[in-house]
């Protein structure tokens, strides 16, 4: 039963990739939830993370999984810088202003990256073996990426639930004015959340390369921006946890449909998976407009 074996192995890949998709969308959801800013430049930050992994490996032989620390630091610093220089001035402006600002910043980062690193695809080869199953072999790199995603999401969850700053962020998400009368410095929470959101996104860019180690390119981000929007909406916009779970759903949907579409004669499955994912999104939005997991 080659078909079922293929489906099963694709679903396993879908789940592993889904964990990374989920983490890669948490930053977007966090920034939207706290600041009501739509980060349309999302993909550019994923790309920066991917290049962080590439350069750290190529120049210093640092294993990509260790680059996540570096990527997080770069992302936090960059996010803070962007907030202080641009976003802070636009918070009271109409929502379109922040959207356009993020769009512009995304393009700026991509073009700057192209200026320094060129337009070509680059990649690395980090082989640390894998686990053999009867139906397929799963490289350890992907398992590493998956486990890292889960650990990071779990740490974030604990941080949000237990720490004072985490609670303050949740308070601002639930009611900005309510947080103000409690004495929360809302602007500081904005800066922190924006930095954290960008930090998470750049970090996820590292994990993405563990799935596509030779697909690193300055324009690689666009695809992830699209996927992140679908996942964020699935999870209920503004809810990082919803986004994390929705990442799994999206990963399974994308990879599962690939196998099923391959059964139809004359259909090129790769081109159609995106169609299926977005059709699924439309259906879910029609049935439950608040997002699949956004209960409130």
């Amino acid at each position: 039963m080659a078909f079922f074996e293929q489906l099963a192995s694709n679903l396993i890949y879908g789940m592993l990739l889904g964990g990374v998709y989920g983490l890669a969308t948490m930053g977007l959801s966090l920034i939207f939830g706290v600041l009501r800013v739509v980060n349309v430049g999302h993909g550019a930050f994923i790309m920066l993370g991917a290049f962080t992994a590439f350069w750290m490996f190529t120049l210093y032989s640092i294993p990509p999984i260790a680059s996540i620390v570096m990527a997080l630091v770069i992302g936090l610093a960059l996010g803070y810088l962007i907030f202080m220089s641009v976003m802070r001035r636009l918070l009271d402006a109409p929502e379109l202003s922040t959207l356009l600002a993020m769009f512009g910043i995304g393009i700026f980062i991509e073009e700057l990256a192209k200026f320094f690193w060129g337009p070509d695809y680059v990649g690395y080869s980090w082989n640390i073996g894998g686990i053999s199953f009867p139906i397929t072999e799963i490289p350890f790199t992907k398992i590493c990426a998956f486990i890292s995603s889960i650990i990071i999401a779990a740490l974030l969850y604990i941080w949000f639930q237990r720490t004072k700053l985490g609670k303050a962020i949740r308070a601002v998400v639930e009611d900005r004015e309510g947080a103000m009368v409690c004495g929360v410095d809302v602007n500081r929470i904005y800066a922190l959340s924006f930095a954290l959101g960008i930090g998470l996104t750049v970090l996820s860019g590292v994990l993405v390369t563990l799935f596509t180690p030779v697909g690193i390119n300055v324009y690689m981000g666009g695809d992830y921006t699209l996927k992140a929007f679908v996942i964020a909406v699935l999870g209920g916009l503004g809810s990082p946890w919803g986004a994390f779970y929705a990442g799994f759903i999206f990963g399974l949907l994308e990879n599962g449909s690939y196998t099923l579409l391959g059964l139809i004669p004359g259909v090129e499955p790769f081109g159609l998976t995106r169609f299926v994912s977005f059709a699924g999104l439309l259906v879910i939005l029609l049935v439950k407009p608040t997002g699949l997991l956004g209960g409130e």
Partner: protein
Amino acid sequence: MEMLFVKDLESGYGEMQVLWGINLKVEKGSITTILGPNGAGKSTTLKTIFGMIKPWKGVVEFKGEDATTLPPHKKVEEGITMVPEGRHLFPNMTVEENLVLGAYTKRAMDALDKSLDLVYSLFPVLKERSRQKAGTLSGGEQQMVAIARALMTNPELILMDEPSQGLAPKLVAEVFDTVLKLREEGLTILLVEQNVYASLEISDYAYILNEGRVAVEGTVDEIRESDEVKRAYVGV
């Protein structure tokens, strides 16, 4: 002693000026009420004093010190808080989480146990409901949480924006009772209300705003007798 002193305060939204020079004083330990028709600038006055809206001109002094440009979180640290119109609770958090967030500043954390005792003695029902999500409470209970959360900040001055709004008459009376109890605890209250007669009942001093200016001010007895009130609210 004057707890709050506001002089020639002007502010507004965007290009639209709402306050055209508000002058008012709030004595320590008093209940002072701001009345006036819709759109007179009552809520805007509170929000400008609290710093949610930036003052364009004028002075806000708290306990004799200039506080005009202090942002809201610094005001809370100094001892001013607000019970906002519409309550603005954290609906998906438990009652207890809402209250603990009220004790966010250093000033409030130092007094956490004392504040909790006060809150639970004023509102015993909140102790029973402490594990329930704030969004699932009734309107009256939510108003209690909003007042309780303000108390958790360990304030000296509470700005209250229409605390009786949207409540059944029996609960309105309860809210006004609570405000009286807060004064007994030594707190100072600046109240904005639509409910003219009930709020005059508990107040020491009142201001009537009209079109962004103070039209009349006086003790409660003076206000009751003023033509302005009769014209505005009784319709003679």
